[in-house]
């Protein structure tokens, strides 16, 4: 029952056989060695597994790998090909993260927002990342870092 799927992963073509019931998160992490999306809840509730599907943030833990056949997937590994992004530098500057486990998902969600809306106001920022859980920080420094980037450029 295995199927071969082809998709673009961080700009590179990928061809892999998957079972229909394999989740995208597991295929990325366990079979393709892409470790930045994290397993946090398995039910789309925490956002740690966020990846971009054709530029849009999705929960890879409730997405079947087979669904992305022919699509384009981006993870942090793809964003960072030329070093840290402006957003990541701002996170660093603002001491935005503590343990860092939610950072990849948060970063991709914020990246999607800034691409769609380069100068969001604080309310728009809060709304965009509202579905990404962080237990450490109290969110404030994450919001501040995104606000900073939104004011630039």
């Amino acid at each position, binding site marked *: 029952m295995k199927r071969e799927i082809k998709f673009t992963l961080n700009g590179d073509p990928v061809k892999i056989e998957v079972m*229909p019931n394999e989740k995208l998160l597991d295929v990325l992490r366990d079979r393709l060695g892409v470790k930045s999306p994290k397993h946090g809840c398995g039910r789309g509730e925490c956002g740690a597994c966020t990846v971009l599907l054709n530029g849009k943030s999705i929960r890879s833990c409730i*997405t079947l790998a087979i669904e992305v056949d022919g699509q384009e997937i981006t993870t942090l590994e793809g964003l960072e090909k030329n070093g840290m992004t402006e957003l990541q530098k701002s996170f660093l500057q603002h001491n935005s993260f503590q343990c860092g486990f939610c950072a990849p998902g948060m970063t991709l969600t914020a990246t999607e927002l800034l691409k769609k809306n380069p100068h969001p106001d604080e309310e728009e920022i809060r709304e*965009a990342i509202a579905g990404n859980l962080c237990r450490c920080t109290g969110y404030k420094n994450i919001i501040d870092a995104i606000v900073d980037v939104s004011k630039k450029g």
Partner: protein
Amino acid sequence: MNNFDYAKPSTLKEAIDIYKKYGEKAKLLMGGTDLVVLMDDGVLSPEMVIDLKGIEELKKLEFDGEYLHIGAGVTFNELIDSPVVKEKFPVIWEASRTVASTGVRNKATLVGNICSAVPSADSAPALLVRGAIVVIATENGDREVPITEFFTGPRRTVLSPGEIVKEVKVPASNGKFGGSYIKLGRYDGEDLAQVGVATIVTENKDYKIAFCAVAPKPVRAFEAEEFLKGKDLTDDVLEEAAKIAVKAISPISDIRASKEYRLYVSGVLVKRSLKASFSRLNGNGPAYGERLV
């Protein structure tokens, strides 16, 4: 998650054929934000999963002057990003924004939301007050079911195996109206509704009220609508309307809220929603999407 076979047909006919063949043993996949969780929990163990994302015609989102056609493949974020939805169907737009989080709304679809038919489906009250029609593709051609008749119970609809919701079509409004959807979660943010209320108020004092999360299925409050018809929204009228409206619901106690609380809050939200709709009708209400709770 048990194993299953997977098909990604490119036409509705093909999809219906496969669905017919597997019957109850097949499940339809669009956004998957509900289905994959249920399969993962072992609640559903289909033999066949039919991915409808390959069917081009289901991606349609258009307004033809008479109806807004929301194809089965249209995600909540696509609705939110659509100027025509925002302008002409603001209650659907407002309700869409309350669904989960952006990472879920990028995949989850409105049609999927009503097909899952959970009592707390956020899109349902908005569709109920707009008199939406569910267009179902069957092997014998399309059939149309008014949204008021679509839900039959918790996670149950009129759909039978082999039938696929193609689109939801929402009639345009003739005159001026104001509407609103208010959702109360146990706390803000990504959450299932404890109570969801949508209302519409028109120029000629026609009123529509619908609920989610407070009955086995999303419901219209017909009796209250009848009572309100032609009346001005005075304090006493509002009070009475809220009293009648909550007769339409039968909330339960669960981990999100108690029955008593839901009954009470439903009344409060009906009043609040009617008032917001009314002020929007008159052009002096809060902007759509603004916080009403």
